[in-house]
């Protein structure tokens, strides 16, 4: 036993390592937060200094509408919120059905459909960007948030299916069997029996899908760069970076769009992590 227990030197070494790891992970974020509450003139004069006072005006400037002397981030956030919530709703609805079939039902062609979905998950997304752009612009949807929504649903379905299938597989099967014995139809089984016990898994998957849609940049750039009123929050921040926008305002915007995802992620962290890494234990 004693050979396995760490020595004092090993413990001290680990404490140093943990401290370095925390600085490496959080240092840049802390730097962003500090700059976002410093006045711009102070940042350029003294880049290494700490804030002399708490100046939250950068946040207000970032959020306010252009007509109000701001940079319109408030509107970009609303666009992002709409697209992300729509993506969550559609993607989760499709995936609850698909994942349940993949986890529980024995139908012909099951191995094939599972294989297709996995292959899609690994397929280079950038290659499909070209035809997706062409199709959607032929349909007149590339300059709309609806076009973006379609692309996001397609992008999140494979990973959401995978996560949700893992959650369904981990549920005890006996309850469902009892319900089937009692004459439950498939619809009743899903709504009354499976979903109530699968809520943590569904919520975790929904949050993960939300994060993907909320953080997405490439398709927003490809579809909407010409339409400033429809910019999503990530696109807005990236585009404003090319204009003469004070860096403190950019950072305030970055922090503002980051805080919601970080909070939501940490609330459901345990479930999301277990959904992602399942299968890695073996």
């Amino acid at each position, binding site marked *: 036993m004693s050979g396995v227990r760490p020595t004092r030197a090993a413990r001290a070494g680990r404490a140093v*390592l943990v401290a370095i790891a925390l600085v490496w992970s959080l240092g840049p974020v802390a730097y962003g937060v500090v700059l976002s509450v410093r006045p711009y003139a102070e940042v350029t004069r003294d880049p290494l200094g700490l804030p002399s006072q708490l100046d939250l005006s950068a946040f207000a400037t970032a959020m306010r509408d252009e007509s109000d002397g701001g940079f319109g981030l408030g509107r970009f956030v609303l666009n992002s919120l709409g697209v992300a919530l729509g993506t969550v709703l559609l993607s989760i609805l499709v995936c609850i059905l698909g994942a349940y079939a993949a986890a529980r039902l024995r139908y012909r062609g099951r191995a094939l459909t599972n294989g297709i979905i996995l292959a899609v998950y690994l397929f280079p997304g950038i290659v499909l960007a070209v035809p997706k752009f062409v199709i959607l612009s032929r349909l007149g949807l590339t300059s709309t948030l609806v076009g973006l929504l379609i692309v996001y649903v397609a992008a999140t379905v494979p990973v959401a299916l995978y996560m949700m299938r893992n959650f369904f597989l981990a549920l005890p099967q006996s309850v469902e069997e009892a319900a089937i014995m009692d004459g439950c139809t498939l619809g009743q089984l899903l709504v009354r029996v499976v979903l109530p016990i699968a809520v943590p898994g569904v919520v975790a998957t929904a949050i993960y899908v939300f994060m993907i849609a909320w953080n997405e940049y490439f398709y927003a750039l490809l579809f909407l760069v010409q339409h400033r009123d429809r910019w999503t929050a990530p696109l807005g921040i990236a585009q404003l970076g090319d204009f003469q926008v004070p860096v403190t305002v950019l950072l305030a915007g970055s922090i503002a769009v980051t805080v919601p995802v970080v909070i939501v992620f940490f609330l459901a962290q345990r479930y999301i992590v277990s959904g992602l890494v399942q299968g890695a234990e073996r």
Partner: protein
Amino acid sequence: MTTTAAQRENRSGWLLVSPSLLVVGLVVLLPFALVVVFGFSEIRLVDIPFLGTEPIEWTLDNFRRAVASQAFWGALWTTVLYAGLTAAGSLAVGLVLALALRRPFRGRGLVRALLLVPYVLPVVAAATIWKTALNPQYGVVNAFGRAYLGWDTPVGFLSTTSADVLGIPVPVALLVVVVFDVWKSAPLAFLFLTARLQSVPGEIEEAAALDGANRRQALRFILLPQLRAVALLLLLLRFIWSFQTFDDVYLLTEGAGSTQVMAIQVYTELVTKADIGSAAAFGLLMSLILCVLLAGYVLLSRRADES
């Protein structure tokens, strides 16, 4: 009775999985078929309104031009270097983190959660912060370097193609992008490795300790072999993902400082040059090369397993 039950299950299965297949078919398989068509035809952005009304002009020109261009081969090399370094780096950092946090200590749960922050951060926010930190005028890195490390002039981290460090040419901008990506993706490797470590039974280590194995031997001969499979999987996945990265590179450098990766090439062909055929050809070649690299990797690791 049993056959009807099986039939019913078959029907329900297809019913439930059909929306997923519909999404995958419409937004993945159909576009894939189209990208092949585009790659072999002369088509530009201005042709989109007439798509489907005019016959396709088939041609091999897109591929010929791509293979003959310096930009293509340059981008390929940059991409392989970038993806390889990112995969190795994020695995290495993830491994160190997972091993450091393996034994319980007070606050471990919190530390674990905090280490995930770079992974959760929106890439645009992360890139904005890094760009600011590396800015030659007011960035903290240059300010620190000039104040304490004796740098004479600020370093343009995101625009410098190559710099001599102790006589060795170093691709500065590319390495910065790699470090950024390692920073963002190592937490995922850390998660997977931690999950695997937790399922290593403690008895094996105890038995080894009883047999007189020291800590380094326990790590080398017991833990690392257990992690081998998941480590190889992580290496493979990160390589695939980094090979197609657009966001991280474009947001940090927009391709400056010799960081033109393949994905940026595809984007440039499509948006700047308005050439759909050429963009499709670049994309197809990129996927083909990725497949060849992966097949080679799988073959090599099979052979290594056998010997």
